[in-house]
């Protein structure tokens, strides 16, 4: 028994390495030949995942463009209830957070741990700012009765909400607000998940897990966060700016 393990271990040392026979840096998983191969595999996997994310949001975008085409006048009227300034500020917040996480990746490439920590903290701050504005937008809309469901502010339901603004609300406006809450809500969930992931790599970075040779998790979380930004780049003009 003892001799077999020794034999196996010896075989590994001669060959390409095994679970405990180090064949490369400590961060290199045993099923990869080189750090480069490991890095490329991680990135490829992430891109495949991002494509599934794009397709998931794509369904909602298709629904939005379809209904916008069917009832452009309803969408035009309903979208006036969105605040362009809040939406624009959130766009700038997300673009800035995309820059800071790209700079965090760059700092990691250069092995500058403190700089990466600062950039990740800045990314978290802008992401948090985005959610705070989103919170004010949602509460304002829910207060105005713009959340689809019972009591939705609509000309059909003036007996429920006898607001003058509601009487002006076109029929079928709930279609716009359903899509608004669904699309921004799903996007918001992604922001929250992204913040969790950024916190995770921030802590690992502070612990000293990463170096110029190994910063794969920062790169991968960066790709995810850029996708969150990409989705918003389309959401903002379609929801807030249609004419």
């Amino acid at each position, binding site marked *: 028994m003892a001799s077999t393990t020794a034999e196996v271990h010896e075989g590994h040392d001669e060959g390409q390495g095994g679970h405990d026979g180090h064949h490369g840096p400590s961060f290199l998983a045993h099923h990869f030949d080189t750090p480069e191969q490991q*890095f490329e595999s991680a990135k*490829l996997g992430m891109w495949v995942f991002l494509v599934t994310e794009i397709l998931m949001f794509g369904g909602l975008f*298709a629904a939005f463009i379809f209904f916008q085409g069917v009832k452009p006048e309803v969408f035009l009227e309903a979208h006036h209830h969105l605040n362009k300034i809040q939406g624009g500020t959130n766009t700038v917040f997300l673009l800035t957070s995309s820059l800071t996480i790209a700079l965090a990746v760059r700092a990691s490439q250069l092995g500058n741990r403190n700089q990466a920590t600062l950039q990740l903290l800045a990314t978290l701050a802008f992401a948090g700012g985005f959610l705070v504005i989103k919170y004010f937008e949602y509460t304002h809309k829910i207060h105005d009765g713009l959340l689809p469901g019972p009591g939705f502010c609509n000309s059909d339901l003036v007996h429920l909400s006898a607001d003058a603004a509601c009487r002006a609300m076109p029929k079928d406006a709930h279609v716009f607000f359903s899509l608004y809450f669904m699309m921004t809500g799903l996007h918001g969930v992604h922001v929250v998940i992204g913040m969790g992931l950024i916190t995770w790599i921030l802590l690992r970075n502070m612990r000293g897990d990463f170096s110029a040779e190994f910063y794969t998790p920062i790169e991968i979380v960066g790709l995810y966060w850029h996708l969150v930004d990409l989705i918003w780049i389309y959401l903002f003009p379609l929801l807030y700016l249609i004419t």
Partner: protein
Amino acid sequence: MATSETHDHNHDHGHGGHHVDPLWLYLAVFGALLVMTVVTVGASYIDFGGASVAVAVIIATVKAFLVAFFFMHLRHDKPFHALVLASGLLFLSFLFLFTLSDNGTRNDVDDMHGKPVVKPPPAASK
């Protein structure tokens, strides 16, 4: 080829060479994204007729390209990653194409807008 020559691409840590882009490039891309955000807000005050969604989508696509190409490092990546992305976008375009083709013909085939599908015969006699 041409892009990799414009910066120090031999910044090699001995593991296949991760390209480190210069800081100014990130800031320039960020500046361009901000400018295009202002442009897209400005465009929303201009009447493009039925093309306003198209204008918004085109500007957004330029912004998305900048993010993917520079921030997500697609320009240094293996072309296969871009191919994965392109394959996703191809199928997304099928979804949009068929959905919008429905959109363009919808009023002809149903009575969503109060138009009867088939005009009843003028004198429906027994």
